[in-house]
């Protein structure tokens, strides 16, 4: 499923957090929302999921106008913090979130086996989350978000505070999920991660400053580093319209 964001703005208490964003995320691609912290990445994700309604403009996922409760069945979401129940075991966490999607008992059981294998936590399924390491929690959180085979997966800063080895591992899993035709939207402020994605949307101060394939974006820079594009945008805003 593709995602179309049309002329969308969002304000909280008069403060415009998202400004007139036009963006179409292609079905089956990994799209990166790249931007410094506070640039509006999370708000944009919440608008796309339909957690909040835009102040102006529209968001569609496939043919469906968001927000839409039913479509949440096709959406996976991995929040910035782990959002796990520490008092429950890994399996209980999966069971609980799985039951909210009203998956059939047998299917849910089978899916739990599958996702535990994908994130390599099968051996730790009966341990309580409170004894998990940071990396294990991240992987469990990812497992929960893909439990119901979502067609669109939103990942909000999934690799924050993760060591390089685990980061590579997690990206490998994203690519694996993509193989099933899942559209993945990843927000990150780590500029290097952009090369893992098909396309990148550069967000600065709530506005979309660039959206292109990663190859094209890198070609626009002199040094082959994405930072350049942000520095350029910062300079333009200073010279142009002071918002």
């Amino acid at each position: 499923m593709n995602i179309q964001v049309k002329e969308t703005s969002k304000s909280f208490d008069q403060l415009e957090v998202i400004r007139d964003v036009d963006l179409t995320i292609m079905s089956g691609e990994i799209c990166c929302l790249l931007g410094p912290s506070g640039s509006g990445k999370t708000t944009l994700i919440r608008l796309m999921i339909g957690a909040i309604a835009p102040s102006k403009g529209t968001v569609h996922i496939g043919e469906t106008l968001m927000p839409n409760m039913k479509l949440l069945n096709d959406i996976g979401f991995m929040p910035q913090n782990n959002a796990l129940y520490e008092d429950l075991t890994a399996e209980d966490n999966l069971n609980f979130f799985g039951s909210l999607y009203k998956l059939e008992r047998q299917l849910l059981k089978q899916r739990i086996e599958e996702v535990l294998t994908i994130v390599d936590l099968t051996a730790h399924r009966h341990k309580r989350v409170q004894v998990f390491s940071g990396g294990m929690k991240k992987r469990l959180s990812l497992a929960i978000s893909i439990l119901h085979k979502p067609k669109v997966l939103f990942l909000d800063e999934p690799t924050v505070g993760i060591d390089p080895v685990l980061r590579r591992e997690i990206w490998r899993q994203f690519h694996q999920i993509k193989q099933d035709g899942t559209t993945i939207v990843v927000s990150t402020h780590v500029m290097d991660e952009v090369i893992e994605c098909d396309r990148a949307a550069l967000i600065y101060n709530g506005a979309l400053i660039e959206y292109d394939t990663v190859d094209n974006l890198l070609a626009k820079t002199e040094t082959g580093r994405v930072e350049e594009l942000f520095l350029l945008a910062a300079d333009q805003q200073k010279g142009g319209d002071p918002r």
Partner: protein
Amino acid sequence: MMQLAKRVVRQTLNDKRSVMMILIAPLLILTLIYLLLGDTDYVPVIAVDEVTPPQVVMVLEKQELDVIELPNNVESAKAYLSSHPDVDAVFRADREGTDITLQEPSKKSSIAVKEIQAGLTSLNPAAKIATTYVHGSTDQSTFDSLGYVFLSLFSFFMVFVISAMAFVKERSDGTLERLLMTPIKRSEVILGYTVGYSFFAILQAILIVLYTVYILQMASNGNIFLVLLVLLLLATTAVLFGATISVFASSALQVVQLIPFTIIPQVFFSGLIALDLIPYHLGNLSYVMPIFYGASAIKEIMVYGNGFEEIWGYLLGLVGYIVVLYLINVLALKKFRNT
């Protein structure tokens, strides 16, 4: 909805401290209150001035009093008592009248006065005043007459704390946000929580009622099942009240910081102090305190022996609270999801 309730139960069971707080702590505190407010076998010590006629001394000695002789050389009763803290009263009776000097206005002093008066009336049976109560009896302890307040107080307080903390944790851990990114209705989330904690509320209610009535022998004239119903409604109110308060707190510490505003005023207006005795008509504030409704209903049942016809007004008050708090909580979840 039931998945959520089941999860709440499982999660709480996994946390031993929460289980202790809901089920064991109220029993412990009620036992302490029983010991503190229950019957006392204290025998006051009184020193009798030598001018007191011997027949008066004799009747005093027949009472539950430790009678000693006041030494001759004392300057005044007050000076003697100040230097003898273990003596409760100095007694002096002669033709001009009777003087009792006591240490301080306290429970010990009132026991001494009560015993002395009982002795004196036995000298003159015509002066005897017979006291009878419509509800309860003269030999009832404070625990018997006020215990019901504590029953509702602790039931409310424990459930409130557990629920408020759990909700704060859901908010700060992000699990509530994740929950609302699944196709569950906002109303189902709150209902699931309420049902989950109500499970513990029922257990708690059964446990503390059986304990106070059968083990602590608190006087009860009414239907125990009605008491259980009241406690269940009160605890449900506490779950939703805790959830509402958690909106204003971003950590467990802040929940504790809010207790002086949320719980302590309710203690004073719960029935511990008769509403008519509270000045400036402030007693009317009781009507905005959920604990008041629970405590009053339990008083009607346990002390007055009344049935459903007399308490439905209080039950309605609690149900009203439940409905309003439920709606507030469903609306508060809009922060996470608009639909």
